[in-house]
């Protein structure tokens, strides 16, 4: 196994960046296809023969059983080919009793008469056209016997217990020093409770699948964030060998954590395609997405801060209570990041979970940090005010020398620099610390800031690189691009590594038959997939160099392979050179392929490695109506080497915008009588629109984290949202003096706080 010290010490083409392709603002590889509507998403893929269409029927109770299903009318409806429920769906692999969204367990559909949550899929109607399937689905009559249900988080949160997730998740309580004594002894204290609501992903593209069989081999295009794990899970569900299943996901219209695994659409399309002997498409409706896929659960977070009058934290605690479905163990880990953020001798963090009869809880947009910063980073603002210390200065005073709980050295930590540069660029010194002092017409104007932190992970990944007789490099990898820029970043790494122009690189991803990569999520994509790509590129360089030095017809013949350089499509040793295409065409006309892989270094765990940032926000609060509009946002981020300034900036600003919505508009409410969510479409579930967002800018510091991976890059996908909402909340307070600790901060809550 390698060591991070080796990574640190070894140079490579990405680090050297001779052609300057790394770090450039390169346009999206697949952009032209997307904007011309020619990038087929899962549901739009054209199968080899005409497809049938499946429409699912969803449960209308939260807990109980299906007493009867009357499918007669649906079966008799024009064009209907089959109607399945638990009574007649083909056998599938069993779901484990305690169920985890991440592991590739079987995920059977329509398994029994039990209803575990409102909106669970209970039947599917497949017909010759989508319209006939919809008409048929409306004719399926389901009768339920409802059981008593527990769905109201705030009514049941006192029943919360320690999470039953695996111990390595470290979600249980962790105390350092003596928190209770430290807090009691602190001269200045904050002790408040924040609430964050259940949130839905609201991807533009609902989950969907197009499936067909050739013999006993299944091909399924579906909208997922990772292919290999879903190939395994789908094979286990269908009880066939994984090599008989090909999962493809070329383009994904947003994942946000909600598409880590497939849902019933994929299973039912696959089963129905087999039963009917023709391709089948199944999609979730927008309404079905809300209940039928995972969500971020609501949280209640208690923050306690104790400090000395000069602003040193002596006690620090964030305790999270959240909820999960009865068969799962996902825990929104809002307290975890606190263990890495600020110094304090006495510390207490942990989580407790109550199991409810609600849809499945899971990962959504930076699970943990996105919700947790909404409390802690506001509490820090409250503490700063109480102490009469500037919020930036307060954070700087509590900057740790090493990881505050493990004592491990930081791989690199530039949080303070992010805060300082942000403050200067934003004009933070013009902020009046006293709330309610600045007016602009009918608006009260305020400034707020918050720190951002998000972890850094490297997962094992592999890739293959091929050079063909035209000198074109093809990257092949079982990676996904969920709208983030993965295609483009892989093309850049390939171009820089092999010294070819970007136009001479092809990228093929989103296919389970390609060398496996972890996919997209947890901001681990570019680092993991990209490092494997670099390794494959280095191996291909070696193969090309050897080809040249062993080929008597090459001007490089006999030269030391180790000294071959790659630039502008030309291979050279000193002043002996030839075009890469000429070499390959002559010496390896069928092309050359090399594999590469990466896995975490043996000593990766010896460093505390994170991404950091600082958010600055200016809001206006309408003095009459309590409406809030963000006027200006600036984020300054330190996230390792940036491969593509354009796609990275889009990731960061996109995250910041999600931060605005988590502060101001986003969230779903559970009607406790039905166990159902109130907002079921994008008119009711409020994600921000263009008019909500004023100026927004993301700045990326020059940084290299040489201990993170061979390229020194880290992720940016989830950093932008972390802390952004807290900065909005702090700006609201600065504008008008309203502290609303129950998100989202809607006009009614502001008016109530203003009195």
């Amino acid at each position, binding site marked *: 196994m390698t060591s991070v010290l080796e990574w640190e010490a070894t140079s490579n083409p990405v680090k050297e960046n001779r052609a300057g392709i790394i770090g450039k603002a390169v346009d999206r590889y697949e952009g032209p296809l997307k904007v011309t509507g020619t990038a087929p998403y899962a549901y739009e893929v054209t199968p080899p023969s005409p497809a049938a269409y499946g429409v699912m029927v969803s449960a209308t109770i939260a807990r109980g059983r299906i007493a009867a299903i009357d499918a007669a009318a649906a079966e008799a409806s024009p064009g209907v080919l089959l109607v399945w429920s638990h009574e007649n769906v083909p056998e599938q692999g069993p779901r484990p009793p305690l169920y985890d969204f991440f592991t590739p367990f079987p995920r059977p559909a329509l398994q029994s008469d039990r209803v575990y949550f*409102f909106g669970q899929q209970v039947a599917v109607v497949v017909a010759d056209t989508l319209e006939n399937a919809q008409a048929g689905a*409306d004719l399926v009559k389901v009768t339920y016997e409802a059981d008593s249900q527990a769905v109201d988080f705030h009514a049941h949160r006192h029943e919360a217990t320690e999470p039953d997730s695996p111990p390595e998740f470290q979600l249980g309580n962790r105390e350092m020093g003596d928190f209770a004594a430290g807090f009691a002894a602190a001269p200045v204290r904050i002790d408040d409770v924040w609430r964050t609501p259940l949130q839905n992903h609201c991807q533009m593209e609902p989950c969907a699948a197009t499936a067909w069989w050739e013999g006993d081999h299944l091909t399924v295009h579906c909208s997922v964030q990772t292919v290999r794990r879903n190939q395994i899970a789908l094979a286990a569900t269908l009880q066939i060998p994984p090599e008989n299943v090909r999962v493809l996901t070329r383009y994904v219209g947003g994942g946000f954590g909600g598409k880590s695994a497939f849902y019933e659409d994929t299973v039912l399309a696959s089963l129905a395609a087999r039963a009917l002997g023709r391709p089948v498409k199944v999609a979730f409706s927008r309404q079905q997405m809300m209940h039928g896929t995972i969500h971020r659960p609501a949280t209640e977070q208690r923050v306690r801060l104790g400090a000395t009058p000069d602003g040193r934290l002596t006690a620090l605690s964030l305790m999270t209570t959240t909820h999960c479905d009865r068969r799962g163990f996902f825990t929104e880990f809002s307290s975890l990041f606190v263990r890495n953020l600020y110094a304090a001798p006495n510390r207490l963090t942990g989580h407790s979970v109550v199991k409810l009869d609600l849809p499945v809880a899971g990962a959504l947009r930076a699970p943990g940090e996105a919700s947790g910063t909404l409390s802690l980073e506001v509490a820090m603002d409250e503490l700063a005010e109480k102490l009469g210390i500037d919020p930036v200065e307060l954070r700087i005073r509590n900057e740790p020398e090493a990881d505050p709980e493990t004592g491990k050295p930081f791989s690199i930590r530039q949080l303070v620099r992010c805060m300082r540069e942000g403050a200067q660029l934003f004009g933070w010194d013009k902020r009046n610390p006293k709330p309610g002092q600045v007016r602009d017409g009918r608006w009260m104007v305020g400034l707020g800031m918050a720190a951002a932190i998000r972890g850094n992970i490297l997962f094992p990944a592999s890739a293959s690189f091929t050079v063909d007789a035209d000198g074109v490099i093809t990257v092949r990898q079982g990676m996904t691009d969920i709208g983030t820029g993965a295609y483009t970043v892989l093309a850049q790494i390939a171009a820089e590594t092999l010294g070819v122009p970007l136009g001479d690189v092809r990228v093929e991803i989103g296919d389970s038959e390609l060398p496996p990569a972890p996919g997209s999520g947890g901001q681990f994509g570019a680092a993991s997939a990209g490092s494997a790509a670099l390794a494959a590129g280095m191996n291909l360089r070696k193969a090309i160099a050897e080809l040249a030095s062993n080929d008597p017809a090459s001007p490089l013949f006999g030269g030391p392979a180790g000294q071959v350089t790659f630039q502008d499509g030309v291979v050279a040793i000193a002043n002996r050179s030839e075009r890469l295409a000429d070499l390959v065409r002559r010496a390896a006309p069928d092309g050359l392929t090399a594999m590469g892989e990466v896995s975490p270094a043996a000593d990766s765990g010896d460093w505390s490695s994170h991404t950091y940032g600082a958010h600055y926000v200016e809001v206006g609060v309408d003095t009459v*109506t309590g409406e809030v509009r963000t006027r200006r946002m600036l984020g300054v981020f330190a996230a390792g080497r940036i491969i593509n300034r354009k796609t990275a900036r889009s990731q960061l600003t996109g995250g910041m915008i999600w931060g605005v919505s988590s502060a101001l508009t986003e969230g779903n409410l559970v009607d406790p009588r039905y166990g*159902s969510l109130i907002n079921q479409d994008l*008119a009711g579930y409020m994600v921000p*629109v263009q008019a909500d967002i004023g100026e927004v800018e993301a700045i990326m510091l020059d940084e290299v984290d040489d201990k993170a991976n061979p390229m020194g890059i880290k992720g940016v996908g989830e950093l932008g949202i972390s802390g952004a909402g807290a900065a909005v909340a702090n700006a609201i307070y600065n504008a008008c003096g309203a502290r609303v600790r129950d998100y989202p901060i809607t*006009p*009614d809550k502001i*008016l109530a706080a203003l009195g």
Partner: protein
Amino acid sequence: MRPFTYERATDAQAAVKAMAEHPNAKFLAGGTNLLDLMKLEIEHPAHLIDVGRLPLAAIEDTAEGGLRIGAMTTNSHVAADARIRSRYRVLTQAIVAGGSGQLRNKATTGGNLLQRTRCAYFYDTAKPCNKRHPGSGCGALEGLNRNSAIFGASDACIATHPSDMAVALVALDASVETLTPWGEGRRFPVAELHRLPGETPQIETRLAPGELITAVVLPRPPQGGQVYRKVRDRASYAAGLASVAVAGGNLALGAVAHRPWRADKAEAALKSGASPGEAIAAELAGAAQNGRNGFKINLVARLVPAALEEARANGRDA
């Protein structure tokens, strides 16, 4: 969505005739509301009569110094009309406060008036709703009904009418012109178009079944300034939490009742010299809250004086 038949009407008389001939038929204009409701199984017409291309898409001057707006004019077209922008700015402001650019390009004047409530329980067929399914009960009554009516609600229905345009029309004393299924032309104030829910929230207007809206007529604009203010959870593409249209001395409120709410008590108080705050307090004396929508009373109390002041300033500038 259920199968349905479709025809395109060529003139208004033919449209109402087709309606009389088909049981369970509906007019289709821009379709921005009706088609959504059909897809969600909330409405299931067996037949659609597309009136979208009827020659009712002009905005004409009337002999009385006002404007006649054809029922098929799109919301975008009306909002952009130079005469409306200069003389009826409250109408332009109200229209552009609604929906999104794409919706306004499709939405028609007639369809906008007849759009149905945005009540979340109305939209979920798994829930009881007297409007969707008379007699099934009102899911919202004891539910998450933050955006429900504070005026004129009943135990059968607490929904609000979501149109912004209609609020401005009521403040402008506009009228609707219709063609009945028996071929008669009618005209009455927009303020009398929508009903309060009472025991029959499924009956939303005083139109006869199959009656076609052909135009909206604006009288000469009232003396004094105009303004439309809408409060919402996000800056665009959101139903109002409350809105107010001021046109001279006329005042109408939106998102507070099952119909645009003409605030005549407040108007009367203003005429007799009350301050804006006192005037809206007189109106709000008749408001009732249900535990979750109480903030609207405070909101309207704050919003209306601010809007009156803005309208007054607009009147001075004009």
